[in-house]
C-alpha cells in the first residue's frame, strides 16, 4: 500500500486517506495563448515510466493539497513537498538524483 507523508499535518497517510490529483507543475496557458499550447496544457501528459511529479490531496485527513515525487515503474516514493511551489525543491531533486542518476522530467532536472 502506498504511504505518503503529508507535509502539512505531518501524518504518514496511507492510500485510503489520500486522493490522487494527477500530474503536477503544469504550465498554464489561457486566453491569448496558441491553440497548441492550450491543448497541450489541458490534455497532453508526460505519463512517464519512471520519475513522476504529482499532486495529492490528504482528503480524509487535514484536507490539504500537496506534491509528491514518485517512481511509476517501482512505486518508490522520493519525497513529498509543499503545494506552494512551481517546481520541485532542491532537496527532492537531490533525493531523486541519488536513486536515479541522470533523470529528467520535462525541462526539470
Amino acid at each position, binding site marked *: 500500500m*502506498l504511504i505518503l507523508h503529508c507535509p502539512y499535518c505531518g501524518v504518514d497517510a496511507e492510500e485510503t486517506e489520500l486522493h*490522487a490529483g494527477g500530474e503536477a507543475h503544469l504550465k498554464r496557458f489561457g486566453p491569448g495563448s496558441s491553440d497548441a499550447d492550450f491543448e497541450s496544457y489541458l*490534455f497532453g*501528459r508526460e505519463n512517464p515510466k519512471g520519475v513522476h511529479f504529482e499532486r495529492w490531496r490528504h482528503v480524509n485527513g487535514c484536507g490539504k493539497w500537496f506534491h509528491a515525487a514518485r517512481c*511509476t515503474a517501482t*512505486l518508490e516514493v522520493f519525497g513529498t513537498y509543499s503545494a506552494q511551489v512551481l517546481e520541485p525543491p532542491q532537496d527532492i531533486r537531490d533525493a531523486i538524483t541519488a536513486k536515479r542518476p541522470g533523470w529528467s522530467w520535462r525541462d526539470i532536472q
Partner: protein
Amino acid sequence: MRRYSAFAIAREAARYHSGWERAWASPEPKKKYDVIIVGAGGHGLATAYYLGKNFGITNVAVLEKGWLGGGNTGRNTTIIRSNYLQDTSAAIYEKARSLYETMSQDLNYNVMFSPRGVIMLAQTEHEVRGYQRTAHANALQGVKTEFIGPQRVKELVPIINISGPRYPVLGGLWQERGGTARHDAVAWGYARACSDMGMDIIQKCEVTGVRREGGKVVGVDTTKGAIDCDKLGLVVAGHSGVLADMAGFRLPIESLALQALVSEPIKPCMDVVVMANTVHGYMSQSDKGEMVIGGGTDGFNNYTQRGSFHHVEETVRALVETFPMISRLKMLRQWGGIVDMTGDRSPILSKTPVEGVFVNCGWGTGGFKSIPGSGWAMAELMAKGHSPLAEEFGLNRFAEGRFIDESVAAGVAH
C-alpha cells in the same frame, strides 16, 4: 497452415497427436518491412491481420517486448458488448461485436465467443434514466439492447439480490448478444492467421527507439537490432506514452493499474455477465466455473502491473452485497494490467505529428470487446490514410474540443 477440424482431431488421435504444427513461426527479424506494428496484443495483431486480409499488405512485422498476448489482452475479464451512447462509438464497438460472432470460423481457431448476454444494472434513479437514454440511442444506431425491469433481472440472474438496502436493483440495460470470449485464443488465433500470411511475429523484441528522418519515420531500434520500415503502428496500450516519447510527441493518456480476480471453480450458477456500475463491480462465470471479477481502476499513474489491495476489497464488498451467496467463496488469483486512459474514455486511432507513424491506443479499461473492429479500422487507416470508423477518434479531437464522451457508458472498468 493445416486447418483445425473434427477430421484433424480424428487424424491426430489415430497417430498419437504427432502431426500438430506449431501455430505460428518465430523468425528472426528481416532488415526491412513495409509495416511494423509495435505490440502483439489483440489490437496490434488484429491490425496486422486486416492489413493482410483486407489490403493484401503482408510484408509486416509485429514486435512484442514480452510474449504474445501477455499485456492487457491476456489479463482482461473478456466482457464483449456494444451498448455505448455515442454514434461514433456504437459504430466501431458494434462492428467489433459482429466480427466476434464469426471470428472462430474466420480464423479457423476456436475463440469460444459466448454471446450469453450482458446486463448493466441500474441502481439509482439517475442510472435508470441514463440507461433508458442509452437504450433509445442504441435503437437508433441499430444496436439491439433493451431496458428491463427488476423482475426480469431476477429471472435472468437468480442469484442476485435485487432489494439491497442501499442500492436496490431498479432495472438494467440488457444486451442479449453481448457476452465473453477466450482472451488468449483471440491473440493466438490472429497470430496463427498472420503467420500463415507470411507476416513475422517477433516476441522478446522490445522497441527502444523510433528512427526518423526529416519528420518521417524510417525504422525502429530494438533489442534485436535496428529494423527499417515505411509505416509504423504503435499499439501498446499502457506503454503508449513511452512509445510516443520515443517518437517525439505527447499523448493525452495516463497509465493506471486495473485489477481483476477469479474465485475457486464452482458449479454453474450464473449464465450472463452482470455489471454493477454504481457500486463498482462486475462478475461472470467462466467455463471452468470460476467467478471472474473486476472493478474500477486504481487512482494513480502506475506501470507495475500491480494494484492496491484496498481496491480489491472495495470491489468484492460491492459484489457480496449484490450476490450474497459468494460471501464464502475463496479467491484464487488476482492480477493487474496497465490501462491507457483518455479524458473522454474513448480510444485514439490516429495519424501523428510524425509522418508514417500511427497510434491505436486509449482503449483503457474496455478494449477487449473492440479488438476486431479496431484492427479493421486501424488497418484501413494505415493502408489508405483514412478510415470512416476511425475518423472521429483522431488526435485532433482534443484540439478541436470534439470529445466522444463515454464516461457513463464506460462506467465501471471493463
